[in-house]
């Protein structure tokens, strides 16, 4: 009897250690990012970092203003959202309210494939397929630009937006729909005026997850956006995002511990904080829908 108890106890502790290891991962992210960027901010004042409009850390006379990278990130993210939010939401409404059961069960896993395609393949597609096509219509579009990777990222995050919003809409109880139909409303009226308001926090969570994915996307922009820190809001110009900058430095030979090495952690902290905010709000909103009904 006693050995059985010991066995049970030790298994439970072992499983606990595995579960708790996730906390260790988060802690190491925080510790490493703050340690290395602390070294960075000892040499570059925070004010200059946050307000400077030039980012040229690899030049002879380096400037460390993060704004061009943030501008590049926001530019590609906004382009992506203009594609993903309407398409994802419409697809979610269709799948949740209109599609027959069988079609929905077939389409959903196939739609998830959009998020499973390796991002480097999407990058290839953005640079060598979409950009040349777009250049036919937009003459001033340069070979590297924010528009084409933005659109591709948008396609890539459709499943994130659609599946979470669809879950939220399907969580709205059937009797609420039936009430609406009984009043003579069409499916469209029910969807727009009853289901979407009822599932609002879930849809908002889906949008935030999409935003956070778009902000953190790396390879598509590293390949197709041009690696040029550019303080602009013109999507036709080449830009560099926070993520693409980290890639650019990692590809070169940067000595461990140098200021250039620390810049990627400073960019990483900025990126981490941006996505963290979106993720936390999204998590909180999702938790709220689960409690709503």
């Amino acid at each position, binding site marked *: 009897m006693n050995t059985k108890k010991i066995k049970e106890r030790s298994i439970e502790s072992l499983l606990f250690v595995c579960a708790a290891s996730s906390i260790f991962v988060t802690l190491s992210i925080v510790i490493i990012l703050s340690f290395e960027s602390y070294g960075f901010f000892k040499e570059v004042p925070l004010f200059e970092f946050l307000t400077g409009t030039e980012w040229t850390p690899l030049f002879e006379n380096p400037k460390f203003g993060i704004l061009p990278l943030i501008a590049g990130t926001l530019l590609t993210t906004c382009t992506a959202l203009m594609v993903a939010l309407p398409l994802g939401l419409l697809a979610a409404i269709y799948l949740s309210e209109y599609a027959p059961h069988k079609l929905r069960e077939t389409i959903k896993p196939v739609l998830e494939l959009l998020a*499973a395609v390796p991002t480097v393949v999407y990058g290839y597609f953005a640079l060598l397929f979409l950009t040349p096509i777009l250049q036919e219509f937009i003459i001033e579009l340069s070979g590297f630009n924010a528009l084409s990777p933005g659109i591709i990222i948008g396609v890539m995050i459709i499943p994130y937006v659609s599946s979470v919003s669809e879950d939220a809409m399907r969580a709205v109880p059937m009797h609420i729909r039936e009430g609406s139909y009984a009043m003579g409303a069409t499916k469209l009226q029910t969807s727009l005026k009853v289901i979407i308001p009822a599932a609002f926090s879930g849809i908002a969570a889906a949008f935030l997850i999409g935003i956070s994915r778009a902000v953190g996307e790396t390879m598509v922009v590293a390949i197709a956006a041009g690696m040029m820190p550019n303080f602009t809001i013109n999507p036709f110009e080449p830009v560099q995002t926070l993520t693409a900058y980290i890639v650019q430095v990692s590809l070169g030979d940067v000595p461990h511990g140098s200021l250039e090495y620390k810049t990627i952690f400073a960019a990483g902290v900025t990126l981490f904080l941006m996505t963290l905010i979106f993720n936390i709000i999204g998590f909180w909103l999702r938790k709220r829908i689960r409690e709503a009904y």
Partner: protein
Amino acid sequence: MEDIKKRIKYNKSWNYFFLIIGLLSTFVGLFLLAVLFIDLIMDGHSRLTYKFLTSFPSRFPEKAGILSAWVGSFLVLLVTALSAIPIGVAAGIYLEEYAKKNWLTDIIEINIANLAGVPSIVYGLLALGLFVYFFKFGESILTGGLTLALLILPMVIMATRESIRAIPNSIREASYALGATKWQTVQWHIFPYSLGGILTGIIIGLSRAIGETAPIITVGALTFIAFLPSSPITSAFPFISFEWLFDPFTVMPIQMFNWVSRPQKEFQINAAAAGIILMLMTLIMNGIAIHIRYKFRKKIKW
């Protein structure tokens, strides 16, 4: 009366119009996916030969191949699977079956949800600081594999939990009623019944890991590797060697990235050919995952 009829007709036509819009929005992404795949095949099919799979990368595009890349991908994935699967499944089982509802469990839960949303390149920075410089694993297969393991850990945990949650409580109660301990219940009932969902999650996680590029670049994987890691099986005693864990490596997506970013057209054809293989691996793995999910759902009825 006429007025009402007109109104109904108006509402119905909008409803119908929206049905088409919704259908189109659902399929536009899939349409693009098909275009992407066809474009890749048209660009790259001419390079897809046996020689392409068995040659090292080279300065001459027509001689270059992906041997070191797919071997590297395979070995990295092996490390990833061996580390992420046991830890992830164990963590999932703990959180569903053992964890008491207290603040510690809450923190672990929030933390895992949060980790799933951290951009992959941040994992690369973590690995650079932790594995490369702190543990001094260098820019090795071990570092690459562990980095990707951290990345897919939240996915494995969440898939395990979801799958376990679908098992009704009556199963657990029946097992306890026969005098089984908690672990016996998990071992003989919970784990086998949730295996389908767990496997699905694992395969999808691994397919994500195969295509992941950014964190591997950050840990400093070289892009030009014209040699293979040392063999895991040796001729001398003890016949198994772990030296390969510490060898430099490259993986498929990095090789493709390297070729895409060159201006010469011939290299871009190579990139397309590598892309076809990457896409095929992803599609096959996801196909298997969908198949397993479907089969298990059919087999088990509570």
